[in-house]
């Protein structure tokens, strides 16, 4: 039936294979809106990971007990509770950060990564696996937002995490800290990610064909290759 997945794999798959930003294309709104600087990206990703982790854990714990008809309603209430807690804590303790992220903290409620993982994973797997999956996805989200935020910060305001890295002679490209810059950067990064995936797939396919030829298998049809998973 189901392929056995190692616990390590549950975590690492979120980093690249099902990276929320580049593979699942989820949570685009915060991705585009808050990544004007690397620190904003990190803060957003950490807040999201916090919510993701606890809601996944809780949903996984009570997954057998929630009736199917009201599962989405239950998930949303749980997620919204954690988001509100994060929002209140940030407003109380990290005033500057909560100002910078503005309305995007309350909007984590509708971030599809969280409901997506709850529906697709936590509601079907045990708490340990759900936690690892949440952490992996959170880490993947963190990596993407950090990369996106860094690129935009370096080119748009010459700094990274507040430290100046570009010489004064470099005229910052203001477009990078405007919404248009977010779309351009994300589009180009996604293009590169797809290019890399495609290349890798083609290489694997060619390697397999070569291997089949070596062992003297005559017919290499698309079905055969599909079965082998490439």
């Amino acid at each position, binding site marked *: 039936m189901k392929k056995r997945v190692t616990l390590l794999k549950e975590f690492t798959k979120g980093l690249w294979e099902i990276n929320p930003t580049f593979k699942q294309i989820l949570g685009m709104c915060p991705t585009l809106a808050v990544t004007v600087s690397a620190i904003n990206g990190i803060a957003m990703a950490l807040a999201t990971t916090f919510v993701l982790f606890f809601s996944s854990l809780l949903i996984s714990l009570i997954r057998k007990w929630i009736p199917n008809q009201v599962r989405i309603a239950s998930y949303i209430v749980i997620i919204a509770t954690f988001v509100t807690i994060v929002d209140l804590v940030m407003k109380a303790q990290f005033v500057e950060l909560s100002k910078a992220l503005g309305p995007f903290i309350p909007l984590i409620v509708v971030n599809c990564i969280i409901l997506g993982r709850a529906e697709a994973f936590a509601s079907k797997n045990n708490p340990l696996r759900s936690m690892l999956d949440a952490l992996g996805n959170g880490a993947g989200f963190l990596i993407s937002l950090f990369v996106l935020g860094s690129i935009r910060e370096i080119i748009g305001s010459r700094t990274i995490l507040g430290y100046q890295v570009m010489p004064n002679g470099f005229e910052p490209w203001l477009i990078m800290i405007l919404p*248009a810059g977010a779309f*351009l950067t994300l589009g180009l990064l996604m293009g590169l990610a797809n290019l890399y995936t495609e290349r890798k797939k083609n290489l694997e396919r060619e390697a397999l064909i070569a291997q089949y030829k070596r062992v003297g298998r005559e017919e290499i049809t698309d079905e055969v290759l599909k079965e082998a998973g490439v």
Partner: protein
Amino acid sequence: METTTTIEPKQKVYFDLTTSPHLHSKWTTSKVMWFVVAALVPSIAAALTFFGWTQIFIIITAVVFAVGTEVSIQVIRKKQITWFDGSAALTGLLLALTLPPNFSLSATAIGSVVAIGLGKQIFGGLGYNIFNPALVGRAFLQAAFPVQITTWLKPNFAVDSVTSATPLAAFKFDKIFTDTVPMAIGNVGGSLGETSAIAVLIGGILLIAVGIVNWRIPLSMILGMFLFGGMFWLINPQNPTPIFHIFAGSFLFGAMFMATDWVTSPITNKGMWVFGLGISLVLVVIRIYGGLPEGVMYSILFMNGFVPLINRYTRPTIFGAVKEEKKK
């Protein structure tokens, strides 16, 4: 539908073959491109006259980087190298002419790379792009370096009363109107290629005369300006007159060289009218209500986005087709 299909289901259909007669054009892509470059010579000459010969470096930088980007991308993607068709050089040249005098050369180079890279090659090269590549480059520069791109140079031979502000900026921020005559000659502040209406018109009329540019687009834009610009002017005489609208900024340059780009303008005659009128309407609204003084670039890019839709709805009836009966 009452039509009967005679094609066998298994039969292979060659979509790229059409029945005769085939139209042969004496114009090849490269001929057209180099001809447009020639039509820009008066504008280049005007730019060098009014803003100094050193402006040639902006033009050279833009062209070199445009061609360089085109070749690099084609080499990387292992495509046929087509720089000699002149389309990349033309994009670079058009971009340079929309930039302000003394614009930084490094930023010009960035603009050229973006124009060809993001404006054209990312869609698949010549003929596949939705938006005018030169304007994509310019829009990028406008967003990236808003201060430099609105820093104007006082033209040579300027009388004392002439400031470096463009006529449109003078209108927008200080409600000052510039006379038509200096705007027609080009002795006002503005981008390199746009200030001299006469030079632009010489090139444009040449292109219309030889049939490269379809007259419908420039004419519909000008008529649209009289219509919509005039409307706003009649409502409130504080607004600029249609004549001011036409001679100020890059309206004529856009009408002759930007909106008429073959790839990004409609293919049907009716569509061209819709396209030209649309540009004028959007432009008048931007100029009067927008935050920026000029909007030719944005209005053309905006209407570029509508071109597939315009083509679809203005498709001419196929010869011999019977009109569909109205449904009751």
